[in-house]
């Protein structure tokens, strides 16, 4: 969200986000860049009040000024747009390393999000992703900037970015990074607030083994969280698979078929992944709920059903 829009900053903590990305880049007009920079330090604790991590997206062309203004305790990640070379990432790493030291932040705390938004970025993906240990998740390869670089209209209803997305996913997996990716779900409206679509997209992403989302409108936060979180049935099914798999121990068989379903080491591993991811989601929800409770108590504000925090209590 644009850091210059005060009401967005003030209310974002109530939305139930896992992270909030304070933008200095494309949503901030050029004449407000300097002003915007000055707002980050104050905005970080405000957006964290609901347990969200605070990120900042800087400008590709103002790395030094932006980093000086944003690297403060409480910041989790610097998103760097239009990353095109490993040198850019090494420069960011060096500046962040110095600022962490100067400002009493534990070394290595702040992540770098290397956003791949151009063909050149895709072409240099491996070098970029391996340029710093601060790059812990990697992906992208679609979106407004990529469309502009390739010279394509968006929202045409078919997958335009298969190659770039595939390259970035392979790079992320080869380097053992978390994958930020989304399978293709047709979108011909370009709506940024379509909750149904956000849910379907997140659910499809989860089923492909991806766990990172993001959006431009508060209406998509809850459906996205829901789509990325395994359902109760998924969890129950995973437990059932593991039970059946355990029953094989001590028998001569390594696999069996129950009701047409194969139960084997592979299915057991998938079930374990589901349970692990469900536990991580639940833990994150508890953290956020606790943060919201602390904030409301401090504000002596009664909890209301309109709070927007919809999952933490589940």
């Amino acid at each position: 969200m644009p850091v210059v829009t005060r009401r967005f900053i003030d209310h974002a903590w109530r939305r139930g986000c896992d992270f909030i990305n304070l933008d200095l880049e494309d949503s901030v007009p050029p004449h407000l860049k300097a002003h915007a920079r000055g707002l980050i330090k104050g905005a970080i604790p405000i957006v964290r009040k609901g347990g969200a991590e605070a990120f900042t997206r800087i400008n590709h062309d103002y790395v030094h000024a932006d980093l000086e203004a944003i690297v403060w305790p409480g910041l989790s990640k610097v998103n760097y747009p239009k990353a095109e070379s490993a040198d850019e990432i090494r420069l960011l790493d060096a500046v962040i390393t110095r600022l962490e030291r100067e400002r009493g932040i534990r070394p290595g705390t702040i992540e770098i999000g290397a956003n791949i938004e151009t063909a050149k970025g895709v072409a240099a993906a491996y070098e970029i992703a391996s340029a710093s240990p601060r790059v812990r998740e990697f992906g992208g390869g679609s979106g407004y900037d990529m469309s502009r670089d390739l010279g394509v209209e968006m929202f045409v209803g078919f997958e335009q970015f298969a190659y770039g997305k595939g390259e970035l996913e392979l790079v992320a997996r080869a380097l053992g990074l978390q994958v930020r990716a989304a399978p293709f779900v047709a979108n011909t409206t370009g709506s940024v607030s379509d909750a149904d679509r956000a849910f379907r997209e997140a659910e499809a992403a989860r089923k492909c083994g991806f766990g990172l989302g993001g959006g431009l409108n508060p209406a998509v936060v809850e459906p996205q969280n829901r789509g990325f979180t395994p359902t109760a049935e998924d969890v129950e099914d995973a437990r059932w698979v593991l039970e059946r798999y355990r029953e094989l121990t001590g028998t001569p068989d390594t696999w069996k078929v129950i009701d047409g379903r194969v139960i084997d080491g592979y299915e057991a591993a998938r079930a374990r992944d589901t349970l692990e991811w469900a536990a991580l989601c639940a833990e994150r929800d508890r953290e956020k709920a606790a943060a919201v409770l602390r904030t409301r108590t401090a504000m002596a504000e009664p909890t209301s059903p309109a709070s927007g925090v919809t999952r933490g209590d589940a």
Partner: protein
Amino acid sequence: MAVLVRRSNLLVPITDTERVNRAWRNDADAVTLDLEDGVVQTRKAEARGLVKETIALTAKGGAEVFVRVNAALLHADLDASVWPGLRGIVLPRVESAADVAEAIEQTTALERRRGLDVGALELIVLLETARAVWDIRSIITASPRITQVGLDESDLAGDLGITPLPEHDPFVYARGRLVVEATAARVQPIGITYPLGVHPRRLPAAEIHRMATDARNLGMKGVLCADPSWVVPVNDAFTPSADLVAHHKRVREVFASAVAAGTAAVPLDGRMIDVPVDEWAKVVLAMAEACDARDAQKRAAQGGS
């Protein structure tokens, strides 16, 4: 920076006199006189002899003129083709930067000998093997003469040893790699969507238009047209429509008011307009102007003939 508008490049076998004579009326942005796959082996020498006199005739309608040479007959074909009036060479079966260098060395010598500016001729390279698709980066960055690059999908299918079925596109990766690497190198990727690239044929104009539009939305900048009937729908598909121009003008207005009001992120019809959306609107409007200018040039040439 000037926008290269080469939406349609009509491929005409140079030995097909009737098609050659008609080609300037087809309204193509470029015409490629084919010495390669469109000419039977026994007529290669005769074909070569036709190039020099055909260039001016082909350019009459304002089209740029290219010649597609045979990789195996490179020297003889270039020798027959590099004459004033030629815009460039379509170089098929390129597998390495060395192939590009070889063609350029001879082209440069011929430019010098025949009074063309050295470096005047462009190269359009065609990739036809797995090796070429894999090494695309070193190939297309081998020379600034390379302005466009495409796949020859039927030869690529042969190299891969596959018989493509119309319902399963086997070139998603190759085409994606072409678009990304070419865009990164600032070379225009060209091509049409599957299966027309691998099985070129006549189709209703609306079908060609749809497939060319999809190609544009994959990042292609033009199409090597196998048939004259493709040219008009291809030109149209690669020209921003009046609706699109109107939409992008509106984007620019809405964005400008938002910036004046202190934000660079503003909703429009459920979408979100910010810097890259405004930047893209500029690109589309510039493209529309460049297409208009190119069409005016061609009209002037056609009217004056």
